[in-house]
């Protein structure tokens, strides 16, 4: 036997051993797991929306002996029709990572020590009492609707402040401002049914093959049925999605605005825009001085003049997209016989011109009349399971109140004071700090204006996901009077640096409701017990509220002196919800939801009563009661054939128009260079994003063996030519550096995607390789959403000498 055979043999033995350990995601070292009962006997199945992204697939959860043992796609679910993605099929494993947090932990010295829930709740309450105005709550679109509503009531109704914001600020905010500036009301008019009907699907900076796989296959599987769908990828790097596309257009970062203006220019100059649609339903807008979300009204002639510079040749020069491809896009938009759906997500939202590019893409659809018919829709997707349902609809944002209200409007504050039965003037009229500002002030010494002394983080992981974390997060950990509270299920990057950790129940360990990207509100029931002392996030809020009440804080009383979160049992007596033993004596979710439901009518986002959602696999609002007492969902908003709020006889009515004349706004916004571009010192573009296996910061998916093994660590993706120039090959370690930080990463060439020369891509899921120490905290002026998709970077080959020493 030579050395080669010996090595092979050894490797085979090791691989076989490893494979045998991997069976059922178990490691034999961790003890042989008890075998589940065979034959599927005693398995209880129930529905729940998937825990992960904003698609909102329904799964069937199989529970046996109090544990989740299997997942199946829900065949009755209109979103996914029985199919899931690899994350969805493994969502049940997210509950069982071996390092689940099971007891409250307080930081003492440099250690976290277990404390009782009573002590933990008391600590949180006393941090509030220190200065209620400086106590911030930071959540996310992973809050269920009732949890988000409880948080909003706690902060806005209870503390009388507005220091409440959410991770959706980093994710969806520019989509919101785009909808508001264009239609006067948030969220898409179309829905996923458009994907079944469109002839052309344009993906703007979007990689749904990895990020929204179920929606992507809903489109491409039509090809298997012999249907023709033209897929167009407009992006800055080649992705898995590009491989399925008929046209793949590569543009230079930030120049999507020029492309959109170029298409509009051609539509106007060729006369191929939809004159009838525009005359009946649209008006024109341009940026004003000073810049506002409303902008200024312009005439069609002014609009045409503003577009004049964006000739195909000029746009080619700016963006790198060939003029013939721009003409191809303009020709498609100019046709009335094809149905065009646009999809976008973080590419357009995480953009310092996020609001502008959202407006421009809506504008293209309005200008060309590709709107309001099945298959004709500009549709933004969300990244979190309830970014729409909770953050956007409940309004867990610094400027918002439930049901599309804003704190700045006295009328809206009065309405919420009445619904919450709190004294007049309880609600504060000044918006709180948006996410970046909240964290900046938390990381600034109090005497230098850092007036946020405590942040309570629930259901998200800002130490990994905020941009430029060295500036926004790290300094706070060195300031003695700043206190970080984290409710989480695992020791995430944020939990590990927290002063107080609260163990949370997750997903089917509690009741819940979420709202997906197509306005679909979904519901599920608790199916298994949370581990140890882990408890619902809503319970944590209510328990702190009650502790504040006990400590004499007036804000937690309504104007009749009752507890703000009082729920009466069947016997008419208040249920002691703050005692977790009694939390499930009533369905708290149902009580919170029914109260929230009252707030949703002013923006025509009507919701059905709770029991309707128990029966359904989600319903799309507005859900309107019919003469027969039944509840009907709405698929196509503003469209006369489907939306009950459109006046009879009208094809289209934008009934929340910013100009109160039923017109949507077609915006012009100029292309402008980004705040940071590659230069001689930092010659590369750096883009960040996700991969199919991992969701958000990977806290859950990195603990699922099948997903973790398939995508075990972060990497830097670069073009082959750049790698050759640097003298690095696959797997070589390089140092990626920006003006804000640096990180060592292995190179992956020809891996998941392929950036063009001069650009890099790094996924952000890996808590050990935190790319957000490098990203830019520059943000959109209206949405305050930062740009994670482009900044200037340089790459150095890690010297072999350093390698040996390391």
């Amino acid at each position: 036997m030579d050395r080669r055979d010996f090595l092979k043999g050894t490797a085979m033995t090791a691989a076989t051993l490893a494979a045998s350990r991997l069976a059922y995601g178990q490691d034999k070292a961790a003890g042989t797991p008890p075998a589940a009962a065979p034959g599927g006997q005693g398995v209880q199945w129930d529905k729940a929306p998937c825990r992960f992204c904003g698609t909102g697939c329904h799964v069937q959860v199989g529970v046996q002996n109090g544990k989740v043992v299997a997942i199946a796609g829900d065949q009755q679910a209109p979103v996914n029709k029985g199919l899931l993605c690899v994350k969805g099929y493994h969502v049940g494993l997210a509950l069982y990572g071996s390092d689940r947090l099971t007891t409250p932990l307080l930081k003492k010295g440099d250690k976290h020590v277990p404390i009782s829930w009573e002590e933990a709740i008391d600590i949180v309450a006393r941090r509030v009492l220190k200065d209620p105005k400086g106590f911030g709550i930071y959540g996310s679109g992973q809050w269920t609707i009732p949890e988000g509503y409880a948080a909003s009531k706690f902060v806005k109704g209870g503390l009388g402040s507005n220091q409440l914001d959410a991770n959706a600020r980093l994710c969806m905010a520019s989509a919101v401002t785009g909808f508001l500036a264009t239609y006067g009301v948030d969220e898409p008019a179309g829905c996923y049914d458009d994907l079944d009907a469109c002839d052309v699907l344009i993906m703007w900076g979007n990689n749904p093959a990895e990020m929204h796989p179920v929606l992507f296959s809903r489109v491409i599987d039509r090809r298997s049925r012999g249907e023709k769908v033209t897929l167009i990828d407009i992006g800055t790097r080649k992705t898995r999605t590009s491989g399925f596309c008929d046209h793949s257009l590569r543009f230079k970062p930030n120049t999507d605005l020029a492309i959109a203006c170029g298409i509009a220019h051609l539509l106007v100059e060729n006369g191929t825009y939809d004159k009838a649609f525009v005359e009946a339903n649209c008006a024109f807008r341009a940026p004003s001085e000073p810049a506002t979300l409303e902008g200024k009204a312009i005439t069609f002639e002014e609009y045409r003049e503003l577009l004049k510079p964006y000739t195909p040749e000029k746009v080619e020069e700016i963006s790198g997209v060939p003029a013939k491809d721009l003409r191809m896009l303009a020709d498609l938009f100019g046709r009335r016989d094809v149905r065009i759906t646009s999809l976008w997500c973080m590419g357009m939202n995480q953009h310092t011109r996020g609001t502008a590019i959202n407006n421009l893409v809506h504008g293209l659809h309005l200008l060309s009349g590709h709107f309001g018919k099945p298959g004709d829709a500009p549709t933004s997707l969300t990244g979190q399971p309830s970014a729409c349902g909770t953050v956007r609809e409940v309004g867990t944002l610094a400027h918002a109140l439930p049901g599309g209200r804003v704190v700045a409007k006295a009328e809206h504050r009065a309405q919420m004071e009445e619904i919450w039965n709190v004294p007049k003037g309880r609600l504060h009229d000044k918006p709180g700090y948006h996410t970046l500002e909240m964290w900046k002030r938390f990381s600034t010494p109090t005497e230098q204006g850092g007036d946020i002394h405590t942040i309570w983080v629930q259901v998200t992981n800002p130490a990994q996901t905020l941009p430029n974390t060295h500036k926004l997060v790290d300094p706070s950990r060195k300031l003695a009077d700043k206190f970080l509270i984290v409710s989480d299920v695992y020791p995430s990057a944020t939990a590990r640096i927290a002063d107080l950790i609260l163990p949370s129940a997750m997903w089917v360990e509690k009741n819940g409701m979420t709202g997906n990207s197509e306005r679909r509100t979904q519901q599920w029931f608790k199916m298994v017990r949370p581990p140890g002392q882990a408890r619902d996030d809503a319970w944590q809020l209510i328990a702190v509220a009650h502790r504040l009440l006990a400590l004499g804080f007036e804000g937690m009383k309504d104007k009749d002196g009752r507890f703000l979160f009082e729920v009466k049992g069947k016997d008419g007596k208040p249920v002691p919800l703050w005692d977790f033993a009694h939390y499930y004596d009533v369905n708290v979710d149902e009580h919170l939801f029914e109260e929230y439901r009252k707030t949703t009518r002013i923006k025509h986002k009507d919701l059905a009563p709770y029991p309707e959602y128990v029966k359904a696999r989600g319903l799309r609002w507005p859900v309107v009661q019919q003469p027969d007492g039944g509840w009907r969902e709405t698929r196509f908003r503003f469209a006369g054939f489907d939306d009950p709020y459109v006046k009879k006889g009208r094809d289209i009515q934008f009934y929340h128009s910013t100009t109160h004349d039923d017109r949507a706004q077609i915006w012009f916004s100029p292309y402008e260079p980004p705040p940071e571009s590659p230069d001689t010192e930092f010659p590369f573009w750096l883009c960040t994003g996700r991969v199919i296996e991992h969701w958000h910061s990977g806290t859950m998916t990195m603990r699922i063996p099948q997903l973790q093994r398939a995508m075990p660590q972060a990497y830097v993706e670069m073009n082959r030519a750049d790698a050759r120039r640097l003298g690095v090959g696959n797997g070589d370690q390089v140092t990626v550096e920006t003006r804000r930080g640096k990180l060592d990463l292995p190179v992956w060439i020809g891996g998941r995607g392929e950036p063009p020369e001069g650009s890099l891509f790094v996924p952000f899921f890996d808590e050990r390789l935190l790319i957000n120490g490098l990203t830019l905290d520059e943000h959109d002026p209206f949405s305050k959403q930062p740009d994670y998709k482009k900044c200037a970077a340089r790459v150095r080959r890690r010297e072999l000498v350093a390698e040996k020493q390391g």
Partner: protein
Amino acid sequence: MSPEGGQGSGLGARWLHVGAAVAVAFAATGFFAGLRAPEMPERPVASDPHARRAERAPSYGELREQRRGDNARMYEGAIESLSEEPFPVKPLPVATPEQRARAVAQRQGHRAYDGAPPTIPHEIDQREVPGCLACHGKGMTLGNRVAPKISHPPYQSCTQCHVVGDSPRPLAPYKDIPGNGFVGLASAGKGERAWPGAPPTMPHPTLMRDDCASCHGPRGLPGLRTSHPERLNCQQCHGSSARLDQRGGAGGPGLVMEARP
């Protein structure tokens, strides 16, 4: 046809045989030579830095070495298997309990629970549209490797549900990743029989498993194969489960439970 013509074509065929034999010999020599490790030592690293950084095309031997996982030896015995005819489909021996246990264990190795999409036991192209169906579309046997036919309709985006079971190079897993205590639903076992000898019912859902031959046909694992693969209409005799197929029924998927307090 004239005898001369026949003779003439016979002569041509003989030359054709000789030519073909030469071609096969060349191909075989090339193939086996290619499989062997390069006998020449690697050229010493050039002093020219550009040459050192330039990519070098890998040899066949290296390519084989690079191929990892279960497919690494896929071509061994390939030539013999080419002569095996898939038709006519012949009855198979009834699987033994040992074969069955082995098959169940093998399936568990690639699945988080019974019904989970299996992970991929070989390397794939991570970026492009997957070419999975080239082998798995109809199923394929190559030497001692079997590419099972997919058990569900040919969806286009295979990597939506199936990920590689081993870290794609050059990425490597961390050594101290927390474990996971999830215990997956075990194999459903055999179907129920109304009496000894009655055809068993299907013990698992048919969703995503609607092509029975994928697992139970002649290319399925020995412990799962049916004794009568020549019969193609499986549901003629084997009933599916309404409960497992989410068609309602007590406690099954698809049933919405009553609102709880």
